[in-house]
């Protein structure tokens, strides 16, 4: 971003504009990834430690297809398909047999799945970092009110907003969304209304994974790819989910953007402490509002 003026006041305004712009675009990545994690937790009570690797899997699936076709849209579609498929297979094969067990079993098995996915990426693609070029169409910049913004980050904000809105509309306006919101509270009752809750579980696990995978492929042109990229972001994603309130979709949106913006401002004004800001926020929320900003005693809410 180019700073147009040089006064102290202007630097402050520039800092605010830059902090918001970078923070919202990265916050959207956090929201997209955390939305899947909180949805899976809200519906199934499963804390999926492999969720970060689904984000990485999406980035790598997109990377491979982008390498073959050179088309970013194809790369995004590949990420969605790969994320949904891996998530759905995970739910059916290793999560479903453990629903009646204590949560520790699910933690252990998803942690194992995370390690396996990282190793698979290293074996198939290689352990080194990979660059992912910004698509030509999105590689320029846009000038607004004297400020210059990178087109790709603007694209991230718009695409993230559309995807989050689509997920919200799906959950609140569609019959299937109604089934899912009801099943969060009472699976037996939903089953006795004739709906297949197991199918809903598989679908939601796949959908949550697909959202993480989209986030992975969207962030790749900014930061590149590396096998542990999922393990790196998952900590921040857990912070978002805890701050927003476990299982709260609204909480994830607010907390994701809040943490993205807070970290971005931190990098501008207190770079030595920027990494710690999300965790300070989390500690404050845990101390003063343990259920999170929008959590209702751990129950999924809109």
């Amino acid at each position, binding site marked *: 971003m180019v700073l147009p003026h040089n006064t102290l006041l202007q630097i402050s305004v520039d800092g605010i504009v830059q902090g918001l712009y970078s923070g919202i675009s990265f916050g959207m990545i956090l929201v997209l990834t955390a939305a899947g994690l909180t949805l899976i937790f809200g519906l199934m009570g499963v804390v999926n430690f492999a969720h970060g690797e689904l984000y990485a899997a999406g980035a790598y699936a997109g990377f491979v297809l982008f390498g073959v076709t050179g088309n970013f849209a194809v790369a995004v579609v590949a990420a969605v398909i790969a994320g949904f498929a891996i998530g759905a297979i995970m739910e059916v094969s290793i999560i479903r047999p453990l629903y009646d067990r204590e949560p520790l079993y699910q933690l252990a098995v998803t942690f194992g799945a995370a390690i396996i996915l990282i190793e698979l990426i290293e074996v198939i693609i290689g352990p080194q970092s990979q660059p992912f070029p910004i698509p030509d169409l999105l590689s320029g910049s846009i000038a607004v009110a004297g400020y210059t913004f990178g087109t790709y980050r603007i694209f991230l904000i718009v695409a993230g907003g559309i995807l989050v809105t689509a997920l919200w509309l799906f959950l609140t306006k569609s*019959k299937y969304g109604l089934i899912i*919101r009801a099943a*969060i509270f009472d699976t*037996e*009752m939903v*089953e006795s*209304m*004739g709906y297949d809750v197991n199918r809903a579980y598989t679908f939601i696990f796949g959908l949550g994974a697909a959202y993480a995978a989209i986030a992975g492929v969207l962030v790749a042109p900014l930061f590149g790819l590396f096998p542990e990229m999922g393990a790196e972001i998952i900590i921040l994603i857990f912070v978002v989910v805890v701050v927003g309130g476990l299982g709260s979709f609204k909480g994830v949106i607010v907390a994701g953007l809040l943490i993205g913006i807070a970290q971005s401002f931190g990098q501008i004004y207190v770079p030595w402490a920027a990494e710690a800001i999300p965790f300070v926020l989390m500690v404050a929320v845990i101390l003063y509002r343990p259920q999170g900003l929008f959590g209702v005693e751990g129950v999924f809410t809109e």
Partner: protein
Amino acid sequence: MSPLLSVEGIDTYYGDSHILHGTSLEVAEGEVVGLLGRNGVGKSTTLRSILGHTPPERGEITFRGDSITDLKPNDISKRGIGWVPEDRRIFPALTVEENLKLARRTDTVPFETAYDYFPKLEELSSSTGGQLSGGEQQMLAIARGILGDFDLLLIDEPTEGLAPMIVDDVVDALEEIQSEATILLVEQSVDVVNALADRIYIMDKGRIVAETDDIERDSELIDQHLKVSTE
């Protein structure tokens, strides 16, 4: 003619606890059958076994002559068996309208039917399930059962915990429904069963211990087995 529902000698367990001991009962099409018994004798477990939520380990359950013993709850529901559960099980974050939309699996029963039976629900259509009183939740639970267009409704303790005036409203609604539905009604109140049921099974310690089609005639028998108030 075979009964609509037949439960034949089922044994059901919760973990190691043996709850139902060879329980058998039948419900014919168009009948309202009462299942009376004290707390904890296995009435709700009988319903849960029929619904597939706690499947029996022995015995057989047939519906329209087909075995449903090993079917999943959603498949049993699709066969035409609906449930109005004991504690209402309203989805608390969904509105009244959303609760009803979810329950309406087919277009056969018009949506407005729910409001015809319970006009108050229309006023509360935008309220969430969690905001309703106990009586309003019971109306909603029964309305969900109606909109489900089931061939058989299993209704569990519909008057439990309700104020006497609300009990009258619920019984009135059930009387209206019974002319068009087949119902297996679990109750502790002899008065409610007396008002609604064509035939009554009495349950004790996981077994059917008596059956009567005339509760007035057999009231001594019922008192002997149930030791419940008939007030």
